[in-house]
């Protein structure tokens, strides 16, 4: 009753709805049992994506001066996306030319870190599906066996590529096969 009186005495333009609902029937909390599955009841099965997309990154840094300590890099990065195993016609193919300068604040324990500039030499990134394509500048650090990326220069160093250093050349690569939803043509 007081609630009703309250509603009557409030200014006409006040937001009465900001009081709790008056009727229990309007209880907004759904207290029915949870619907999240608790497991697979029908035994092990394994669904497989209809379409697969191979994401491939390959590249190298040439480090100078020879023998170190290194003060510059030049290099190349190739990115390809291959749909359903069709290596001859990648759906996306990018080639970047790379240059880099030393970065003083590198990753913990890294042998060296570089700020790398990516120059797009070939390809159209719009055709690629991968969300984390290289930005114009990225900071990497090397600690065997990985090349670490300072993600968005946030200080979060993520193992980005497997890498090997041999004779002042750092070779790196990454591959992952994922599913892709493709709109089928009718």
């Amino acid at each position, binding site marked *: *009753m*007081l*609630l009703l009186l*309250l509603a009557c*005495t*409030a*200014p006409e*333009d*006040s*937001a009465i709805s*900001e*009081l*709790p*609902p*008056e*009727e*229990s*029937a309007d*209880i*907004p*909390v*759904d*207290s029915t*049992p*949870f*619907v*999240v*599955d*608790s*497991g*697979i009841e029908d035994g*092990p*099965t*394994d*669904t*497989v*994506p*209809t379409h697969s*997309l191979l*994401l491939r990154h390959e590249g190298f840094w040439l480090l100078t001066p020879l023998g170190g300590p290194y003060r510059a890099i030049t290099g190349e990065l190739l990115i390809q996306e291959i749909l359903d195993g069709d290596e001859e016609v990648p759906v996306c193919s990018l080639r970047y030319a790379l240059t880099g300068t030393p970065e003083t604040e590198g990753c913990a324990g890294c042998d060296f870190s570089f700020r790398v500039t990516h120059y797009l030499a070939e390809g159209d990134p719009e055709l690629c*599906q*991968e*969300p*984390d394509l290289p930005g114009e500048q990225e900071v990497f650090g090397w600690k065997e066996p990985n090349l670490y*990326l300072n*993600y*968005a*220069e*946030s*200080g*979060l160093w*993520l*193992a*980005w590529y497997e890498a090997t250093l041999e004779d002042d050349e750092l070779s790196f690569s*990454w591959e*992952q096969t*994922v*599913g*892709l*939803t493709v709109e089928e043509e009718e």
Partner: protein
Amino acid sequence: MIFLLLACVSEEPVDSDTPAPAPELPLPDLDGIDLPTAVQEALSLAVGLSLGSPWSGNVTSLTTLAREGCPDFYVGSPPDVDMEAELSWADTCRTSGGLFFDGYLGWDHSLSLEGDPAEAAGQTVEATRRLGGNGSIGDDNGLFVGFDGEGEEAIYQVTAPGYSHWTWSSLVQGTVEGSNATPLTGGWRSDLYLYSIGGDAEHLEVRGNAYFPELRIQDRFDSVAMDLVLDGALGATSETCTLEPAGWIGLRDEQAFWYDLVFMPLNDDGYIDDPYTSCDGCGQLFLRGVEAPVDLGTVCVDLSSIFAELAPPDPEDFVYTLHQTEAP
């Protein structure tokens, strides 16, 4: 009253087809309930129901439990799912070790930083993340994560020497379960929106509902609902009420009785009734939907400690890339 009237006329001839009146529902009481503490617990629980719970449950479970092909990852959304996502997993599979992945979850994130926190101009950090779908990861002993619904979260931080300011918002509309997703046994379901400001100010807004299938506040209440704005002493002006929130907090007991503690009005119009407009740290308690007794009196509660519990998530925790999903 209706029951009494029916009792009075019961000596009259009664049509045998007339159903007997339902027994009068006894009204509950609050004996043994420390309501101020219950309200504090309700608010404290509510601010913990952010997207960070199911997000970290998904990331932790995938990082530590995924195996080659179980589950399958997708760029974009999985097929036959009405959902926007940059990355996702979808599968119905079981690993040789007995772990299962069932359903699908999709997510995306953003993170950007500008400036230097050591310089006077400071550093600005913005991060967002979204998670949606209906997926569960677990083994025969239970769930590591189960999430059915959608949520989004954002933070904005400015840091400079001697200065800090942040805003944090989260909206989860869904059900969360699993040991990697929530410390609350049995999980929770909510449609809660949280918004808070910290650093150089103390401000909190909470709107929505939450249900706990196993947790009981004061061994009695299984749900909370609220629509409130609360300001703390930090950064407050002389006109700011820091003793109580504007809005209300509701607690539902297991018999579905809602107790609503109504504080000051949420808007500037206010209410004519004095109990609502005074900034005194007290609210009026009502039993919702029951004509009498409606007004259960005044309850005073100190909610200021909630600001010590508000800490925005680490921006780094918003990041989950394909490079981090590789199976061991």
